């Protein structure tokens, strides 16, 4: 007995849904066991069938219920907001976030229409800051309320939860709501993440040192001569070093979280998206702060000041590279956000 192509894809999507709901290192093992059970059930129901179709499999999956329900049996105590309430919670968070963002946008529109005209960048930054804090506060409040409801309703069965009709989706789920099989979903790589983590720590050490020297690095060409300090970063770049340190620290923390959970989760995916967004903003500010590097380093090595003539060229090249990387980052942020919204990892 084997599954036809469409049924096999459906089964893989279902199992992916279950895995995304499960935490910990046992998720693959649990999913494999569920798969084994489904095969046994299909073999019993269709003993003579050479090929299992989507409709055969659908009947079994419908009986088992939504992936969230299946996964919940394995880890009932894991959630702050449990699987029974999560669909409603997520809906409310999205509505509240949209309302808060809409209200703040309206407020910005009205205030910018009233004279005197506000400055563009400070107003925009203030707006982004208020959106961030407003949405975060609203989401925190909603989370708190749902966490209280979750605790208050612990131990009650599904039928006791009147007023939450959406909870029935745990039993009656739609197959088209199962996650798509990602063709190139980034699999967790222990080696890759470890390297990222080590590079992050090295970056932290480097920028901490650079911050202490004011943008200079030591050069020790002649063993008999004293160590010289050569400048590589300009003062305008040094203004951003604390921000770079903060972002690098957050990147290291993300790598450590990835190593701890040994998989990409919704948390680490959104964490990456937010960090990429922050990097994008930083890159934008760096473009306005050009020149950010100097070839003073080479003048010390070669002993000739000629290298300084190439400062504008190097900074122009950097401007182009940063601008191109911003474009790439923007596309990546959009792609990752869309994927995470459409098919979130848990």
């Amino acid at each position: 007995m084997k599954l036809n192509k469409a049924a096999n894809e459906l089964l893989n999507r279902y199992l992916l849904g279950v895995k995304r709901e499960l935490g910990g290192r046992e998720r693959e093992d649990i999913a494999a066991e569920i798969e084994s059970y489904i095969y046994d059930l299909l073999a019993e129901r269709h003993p003579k069938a050479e090929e299992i179709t989507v409709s055969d499999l659908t009947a079994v999956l419908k009986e088992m219920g939504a992936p969230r329900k299946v996964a919940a049996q394995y880890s009932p105590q894991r959630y702050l907001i449990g699987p029974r309430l999560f669909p409603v919670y997520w809906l409310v968070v999205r509505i509240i976030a949209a309302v808060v963002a809409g209200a703040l946008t309206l407020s910005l529109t009205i205030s910018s229409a009233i004279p005197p005209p506000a400055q563009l960048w400070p107003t925009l930054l203030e707006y982004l800051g208020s959106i961030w804090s407003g949405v975060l506060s609203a989401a925190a409040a909603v989370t708190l309320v749902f966490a209280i409801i979750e605790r208050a309703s612990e131990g009650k069965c599904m039928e006791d939860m009147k007023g939450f009709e959406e909870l029935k989706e745990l039993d009656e789920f739609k197959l088209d709501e199962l996650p798509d099989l990602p063709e190139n979903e980034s699999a967790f790589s222990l080696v890759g993440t470890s390297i990222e983590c080590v590079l992050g720590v090295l970056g932290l050490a480097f920028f901490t040192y650079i911050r202490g020297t004011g943008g200079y690095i030591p050069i020790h060409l002649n063993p008999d001569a004293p160590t010289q300090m050569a400048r590589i970063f300009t003062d305008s770049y040094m203004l951003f070093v604390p921000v770079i340190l903060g972002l690098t620290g957050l990147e290291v923390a993300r790598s450590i979280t990835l190593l701890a959970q040994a998989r990409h989760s919704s948390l680490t995916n959104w964490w990456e998206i937010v960090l990429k967004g922050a990097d994008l903003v930083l890159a934008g500010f760096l473009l306005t702060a050009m020149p950010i590097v100097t070839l003073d380093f080479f003048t010390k090595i070669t002993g000739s000041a000629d290298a300084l003539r190439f400062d504008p060229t190097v900074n122009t090249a950097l401007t182009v590279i940063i601008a191109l990387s911003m474009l790439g980052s923007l596309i990546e942020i959009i792609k990752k956000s869309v994927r995470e919204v459409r098919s979130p990892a848990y």
Partner: protein
Amino acid sequence: MSFNLYLSLTLLCTIQYYIGMNALQNSEFEKLKLELRRGAIVLAAMSQLREEQYGYSLINSLNEQGFEIGQDTLYPLLRRLEGQGLLDSQWRVEDPRPRRYYQLNDAGREMLALLTAEWQQQDKVIRRLLE
């Protein structure tokens, strides 16, 4: 006319009341039955794991003997019992898919003996109480 209407309404209300009460009673019964079964599930599952079984065969074995259980209850239970050191399990490829086989280990067999004795003792007490 009004008497007939009154009679019909009274009849309707009475039927609705009995249907409602019946549904409530059924729902309460189901809840209490679940509570009653909860403790017995571990013993029932362990009793069948003296011999090696995979999940689906264990479900069938229990169901055929009149103890209804679903995969959503059994698999997490097996995982919990294994975590408690009472079961051993291993993946094996047989017929032609991989299956996970479970069996009680020494600690599990000891625990099963203790639980069986406790169950029999409680059974005697309950029988006496119900007489």
